[in-house]
């Protein structure tokens, strides 16, 4: 059985890298400290590959169809140039085609029909976290995109189930293999609406408490309307829910939290799930 050596969750706000000097230094330092702790966790864990779960920002799928989940199967993937809105140029991220193919078969066998793509364009949902966690882009990354950027969205329970199947897959891998999981997205935020720049700190803090206290049933019982109260971007919580499913029963810890960074339009959080193999 392979070892799940790290399971992490973080925001992927592109403004952190696009406008690094815009935020008050105290808040910016706190955000960077949170990412620094995540990076230390990942480096200490020394995974052979990582799975990044983020949401489809409608750069790839949308028309003619939008699958609830899409898994990238290719030796490497390209990111889109996002200099203006994320301060990041186009980059190439190595992947592991064999692992991705086997993961796909495994989750299909488990009953979640994830779509497959051989040409997944990455964006800040992946690249902002990687900018902080693996800046050399030398760790093979397997990618799952979840459809959170418009309705209908996959149910939270389905995301959680996918996480459980990911964990089961990891446990079928060779004993020497070390695996990390990273979920990116959230907290409360509004994208492209008149409320852009607001946060729902009460919702954010309730969410973090649910994760830390492992009240997974409460987490999964959130309705779409309750999530929408924290903004259309809050639906990205599904990317964290999938990690929660993969770490069922494991304690969680908030490594960094900043309530509201006005120039960056939202708050920030980084979470570590204490997996047994880590």
């Amino acid at each position, binding site marked *: 059985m392979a070892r799940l050596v790290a399971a992490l969750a973080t925001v992927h706000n592109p403004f952190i890298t696009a406008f690094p000097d815009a935020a008050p230094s105290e808040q910016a330092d706190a955000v960077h400290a949170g990412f620094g702790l995540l990076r230390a966790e990942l480096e200490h864990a020394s995974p052979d590959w990582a799975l990044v779960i983020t949401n489809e*920002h*409608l*750069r790839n799928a*949308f*028309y003619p169809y939008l699958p609830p989940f899409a898994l990238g199967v290719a030796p490497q993937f390209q990111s*889109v*140039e996002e200099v*203006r*809105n994320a301060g990041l140029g186009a980059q190439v991220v190595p992947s592991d085609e064999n692992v991705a193919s086997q993961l796909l078969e495994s989750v299909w066998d488990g009953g979640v029909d994830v779509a497959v793509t051989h040409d997944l364009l990455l964006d800040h949902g992946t690249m902002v976290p990687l900018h902080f966690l693996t800046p050399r882009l030398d760790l093979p990354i397997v990618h799952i995109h979840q459809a959170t*950027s*418009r309705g209908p969205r996959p149910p939270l329970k389905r995301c959680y189930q996918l996480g459980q199947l990911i964990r089961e897959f990891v446990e079928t891998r060779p004993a020497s293999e070390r695996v990390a999981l990273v979920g990116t997205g959230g907290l409360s935020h*509004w*994208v*492209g*609406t*008149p409320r*852009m*720049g607001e946060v729902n700190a009460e919702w954010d803090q309730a969410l973090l408490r649910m994760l830390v206290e492992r009240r997974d049933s409460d987490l999964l019982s959130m309705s779409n309307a309750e999530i929408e109260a924290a903004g*259309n971007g809050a639906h990205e919580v599904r990317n964290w829910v999938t990690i929660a499913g993969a770490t069922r029963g494991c304690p969680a810890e908030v490594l960094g939290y900043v309530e509201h960074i006005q120039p960056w339009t939202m708050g920030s959080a980084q979470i570590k799930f204490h997996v047994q193999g880590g």
Partner: protein
Amino acid sequence: MSAFDIDKLLHSISTRPAWEEFLTQADARMDACNLTRPEREALLGGDARTLYEMGVNEYLLLRYSGWIGLGGGRLTRALVGARREAR
């Protein structure tokens, strides 16, 4: 017409090269999508508020706003008070 038609067009021009190419053949592309005059005017005129009120997807709207130079909080200011039609 529906917001889906504008969404479809915006989705197809969601990278900078695609947006720049669109600008060289905008009429033909909008003809192909059967956009109405108000939709064309909103799209080419950078009228994010009208596009929002027409129901354009917010993520696509945000990306489009970057192409037309509505960054740095200007999109939010343009949208203040805007109301969406039911979709």
